């Protein structure tokens, strides 16, 4: 299936429009554009309208309209009983939200960045993720923990970590990583409707990006399945897996590789836990080469898990060693040139893909 991407290039003389076939219907070349921010906002709005037990909690989500304006307008629409501004006490309000979920409500907890969720991580793991198991299903926890994850721009070491590997290793959690507006809408709706704790990792730099959305995506019943990756671009020479912001870079890399005669297949993971091993392995069995891309620290990262999964399930199909592109193994520096070196760039992905094809770089 072809992925659909309409990107705005800053200094581009041409735009490329790729045709799209959705399982659900046809694609109109004049599809509506929607930012990821609006996608998240509309998803929250619709789910709150549909289910009165859904409520929002977090710092500045109400009167400030959201630190990143994701919750804009929701306080006015649903009132202070359902959109709660909290004090700056992550451990306390996360615990309160989990307790509310124990008693049948459906909280959506916003962390201003997922870095601050570390203050509440005991509640995410021990109070939320493990409760269904420890209670043999007496206590299920239908909660969503969401917020911007990973690097932003120039925010330094304490505000730039990617937590996908940490949460992705915990049984009992579901971990989702949207890229496009369609992902944001469909996955957030699925997360809110899901009866288990979901960690929903957004990306600050994606909030303002626009993507085309079809009528089906805009429908209030739209939902994406949890645990299924999406092939954004089909190819036959090398598989590139990525999630969140890195999907955009992988697609750019694929464009560049195309010109050099390498057809790259780009997989948007969408879900870190459950990980769509079937989709990844099916793709690698077709292309025989793999480059994993992630923004976070390399050691014990998402790429490490994907690499091992492919070796376990598709070893004989590999024609080259698996390449792993990740953030640098250092704290995020502030200086712009160092920061650029600490995060994967398009050239890194291109270079790694060429290596798997034994093409000299």
């Amino acid at each position, binding site marked *: 299936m072809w992925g659909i991407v309409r990107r705005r290039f800053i200094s581009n003389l041409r735009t490329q429009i790729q045709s799209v076939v959705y399982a659900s219907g046809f694609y109109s070349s004049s599809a509506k554009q929607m930012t990821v921010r609006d996608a998240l906002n509309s998803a929250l709005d619709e789910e709150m309208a549909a289910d009165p037990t859904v*409520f929002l909690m977090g710092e500045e989500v109400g009167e400030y309209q959201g630190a990143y304006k994701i919750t804009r307008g929701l306080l006015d629409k649903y009132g202070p*009983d359902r959109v*709660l501004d*909290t*004090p700056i*006490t992550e*451990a*306390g*309000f*996360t*615990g*309160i*939200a*989990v*307790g*509310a*979920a*124990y*008693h*049948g*409500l459906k909280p959506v907890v916003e962390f201003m960045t997922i870095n601050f969720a570390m203050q509440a991580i*005991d*509640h995410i793991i*021990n*109070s939320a993720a493990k*409760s*269904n*198991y*420890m*209670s*043999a*299903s*007496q*206590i*299920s926890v*239908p909660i969503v923990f969401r917020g911007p994850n990973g690097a932003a721009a120039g925010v330094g070491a304490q505000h730039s970590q990617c937590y996908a590997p940490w949460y992705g290793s915990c*049984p*009992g959690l*579901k971990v989702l990583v949207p890229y496009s507006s369609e992902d944001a809408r469909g996955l957030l709706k699925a997360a809110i409707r*899901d*009866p*288990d704790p979901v960690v929903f990792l957004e990306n600050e730099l994606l909030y303002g990006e626009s993507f085309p959305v079809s009528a089906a995506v805009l429908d209030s019943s739209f939902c994406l*399945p*949890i*645990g299924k990756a999406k092939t954004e671009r089909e190819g036959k020479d090398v598989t590139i897996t990525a999630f969140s912001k890195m999907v955009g870079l992988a697609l750019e890399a694929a464009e560049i590789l195309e010109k050099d005669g390498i057809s790259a297949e780009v997989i948007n993971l969408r879900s870190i836990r*459950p990980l769509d*091993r079937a989709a990844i392995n099916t793709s690698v069995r077709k292309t025989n080469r793999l480059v994993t891309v992630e923004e976070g620290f390399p050691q014990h990262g998402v790429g490490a898990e994907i690499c091992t999964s492919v070796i*376990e399930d598709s070893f004989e199909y590999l024609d080259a060693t698996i390449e792993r592109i990740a953030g640098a193994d250092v704290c995020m520096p502030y200086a712009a040139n160092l920061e650029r070196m600490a995060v994967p760039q398009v050239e890194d992905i291109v270079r790694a893909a060429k290596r798997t094809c034994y093409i000299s770089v």
Partner: protein
Amino acid sequence: MALTRRSCNLLKPLTTPISYIPSIHRPFSTDDAKITVETSVPFIGHKCEPPPRTIETTPKELMTFFRDMAKMRRMEIAADSLYKSKLIRGFCHLYDGQEAVAVGMEAAITKKDCIITAYRDHCIFLGRGGTLLEAFAELMGRKDGCSKGKGGSMHFYKKEAGFYGGHGIVGAQVPLGCGLAFAQKYSKEEHVSFAMYGDGAANQGQLFEALNMAALWDLPAIFVCENNHYGMGTAEWRAAKSPAYYKRGDYVPGLKVDGMDVFAVKQACKYAKEHALKNGPIILEMDTYRYHGHSMSDPGSTYRTRDEISGVRQERDPIERIRKLIVSHELATEKELKDIEKEMRKEVDEAIKQAKESPMPDPSELFTNVYAKGFGVEAYGADRKEVKAVLP
């Protein structure tokens, strides 16, 4: 508070006893005749008017209190033996000595009110309607346990009776309890939540975070500090700059309660429930004591003297207090009360026998309940090529 030793002959029953004359002895009274009792000591309030120490009760209630506390006491002592014979593994935190808190609280509330506590949860579970079989089977890791053997001692739950566990992380249960209260208020229920914690947990930061939000949002949350004076091996004066836990809420009112007196506990919880429904959170400090160590790995005598433990047992034991009341009001004889205790012992032994016959969980249960909704995802055992399952 100092636990001073007073000699036995200074110990007075709460009302003047009538000497026992067989000819006017009544059989067990289950009627609802009113009996007035006084709590052992008056309540001390912080930013609130304490409730009166005079309480009305009935013979039926007195007998129920005795029976329930005797059952809890017996259960915990039996758990001690089971642990020593290695049928219970891991952690086992016993509640004997503190029974009055569990029983008094239940008497003041309904099953629609919620209780959440830490790991010393066996008796709270029983008070909420859990059975001895469910408790012992869970302790021994069998499938008839309340958590199907997958939780263990620290993870008993009974959601339909408003019991939300059973938590192993010290202090975490307090914000969770405020969350229960939040949900009750959100859904416009006229019920309250009791978040129980110990003197050790009372210093946790998240407790104060939750207290602030509970007060800000007027949540019907009642903070119950079961102050047994020791956080594991650390006495309260070594852990807290201010061990007046009922005052630690500052802007939140508090009440200091004799936690060994089941009537004081009942009165305080009744008062707290009325308060919380109208005015938001309140703190109850239950002055109580545990006879066992922190857990079965702790003898409990390296940081406190045996004299102290036996002193409390002699002077403040909650079951003895009720026994004296019952006998002095001629609701039952000493022998009849001993018979009840024997009956409880029999019930406990029977439950243990049944629990021992309960099988361990089926190996397939390793992979159940990971998610409420698993989407058919795969999960793996230690050797993923050998053990694999699909999560339902």
